[in-house]
């Protein structure tokens, strides 16, 4: 049973990624990225790391994909149609898709035929409190640095996109 789930999720990740790369419109690319990331989160759940999966969904898909979509919408105009000019590349794109599917089929055949025991040791229940304790003790410095990094990113990003307003020459009413 886990094998089928694993294959299905891996398939989702790979096919979404290929679709995201080859999509005609940038927006479809972002949607493909979102599906791919959700597939990765599913793989995390299969590996027993549910908390990481939720973290991935809320940060990557919930925030990063939104950012990407938002930026695409802001810088649209001609930029979204770049790929249209390269129509002769259709053969190459089909080739990549076929290669991806073949790779998936080979992986699937290998997993199902060769009696590889994916038998993982029974997953002992990992308590989240342990994770929290670990975060607060061994990784405390890294956590603080991450916080500073987040702050720096926000400040830097806001500074980058800040629009300089020209000084009003007559500020009579102010």
């Amino acid at each position: 049973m886990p094998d089928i789930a694993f294959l299905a999720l891996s398939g989702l990740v790979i096919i979404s990624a290929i679709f995201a790369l080859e999509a005609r419109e940038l927006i479809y690319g972002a949607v493909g990225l979102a599906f791919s990331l959700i597939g990765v989160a599913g793989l995390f759940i299969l590996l027993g790391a549910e908390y990481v999966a939720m973290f991935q969904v809320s940060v990557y898909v919930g925030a990063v994909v939104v950012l990407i979509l938002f930026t695409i919408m802001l810088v649209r105009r001609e930029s979204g149609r770049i790929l249209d000019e390269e129509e002769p590349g259709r053969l190459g794109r089909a080739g990549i898709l076929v290669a991806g599917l073949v790779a998936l089929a080979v992986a699937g055949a290998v997993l199902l035929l060769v009696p590889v025991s994916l038998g993982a040791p029974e997953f002992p229940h990992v308590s989240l409190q342990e994770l929290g304790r670990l975060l607060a003790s061994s990784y405390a410095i890294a956590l603080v640095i991450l916080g500073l990094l987040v702050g720096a990113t926000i400040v830097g990003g806001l500074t980058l996109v800040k629009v300089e307003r020209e000084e009003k020459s007559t500020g009579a009413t102010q």
Partner: protein
Amino acid sequence: MVTLLQAAPAPQEIISLILRIITSRTFLEIVFFPGFLNVMISAAFLTWLERKVIARVQLRIGPLYAGFSGIFQPIADGVKLIFKETIFPELADTKLLMLCALGLMMLAFAPAVAIPFGEGLVIANMDVGLVYVFAVMSLFPSVILLIGWGSNSKYSLLGGLRSLFQQVAYEIPMWFSVLGIVMLTGTLNLTKIVEAQQRLWFVVPQVLGFAVFFTAALAELERTPFDLPEAETELVMGWMTELSGVPFMMGFLAMYTKLYVMSALMTALFLGGWSGPGLLPQPVWFLLKTFLVASVIVVIRGTFPRVRVDILLRTGWTRLLLLALANVFVTVALISLGLDWVWRI
């Protein structure tokens, strides 16, 4: 290949497998209560409830003719919407819109999987249930943005952008407001959080947290006083402008499903879930409290004016966050006073 064919089960095994799945408890839970049927019927019931309550607040009567006191009005609405022609603008992205409308419906239903409607009446008792609910809710803004964009119309895009800003801004106070609860119980499991409230509901020590969560939930649900994305006098219907027929029904129902699920979440987190004097069965208590919360939200819709968008965003990013942090401080004070034995069973 030979191994694969040998591993395929025989037909009668497949039938018995399907029968076993259908009668299994999890499947029944998913389809009936507390799953699909429960959420659907409650969402439809909430549309009726809202129209009646708002009508009374506005000194009129509301739906009256479809059944006793208009109780079958949601069914009439659904039938009408199914038979409506699905018209999209010519340049709109039909595939994207249909996909996103369907996705919205599925996303709205997703958090209900982790919410306990009674002792043991939960579809998926996840140890990270709370984070799962919030992770699913963080997916809403992107879907709404895609609908607004794919409609290829100014009103929809603006509505989608406003909705995105609003929901993203209020996600963070929501995350912080439940931090107090997590500190007091030490678990993210929703069932355990409900069980921990046996002596005292969390709404009492976490008043600030409840207030912040309630406000943030109002903003996430796009209800007044935060319903700018739906401001009828400004944006026609916001991001739902270009949806019609079945996609519109999906978007509309998704909003009310979200309302139901958020009310259920608030009941589970703050109002003690299914605890109550043992006169009625536990799920009934849960539903009573949920509908009470939903009614309060509906009454607020009828009574408060709309908030301006910049005040709305500023409140979400700054003031509510400070209140939520104050709530965390209160909780830390409670713990250091040694009062957290109340919530440890």
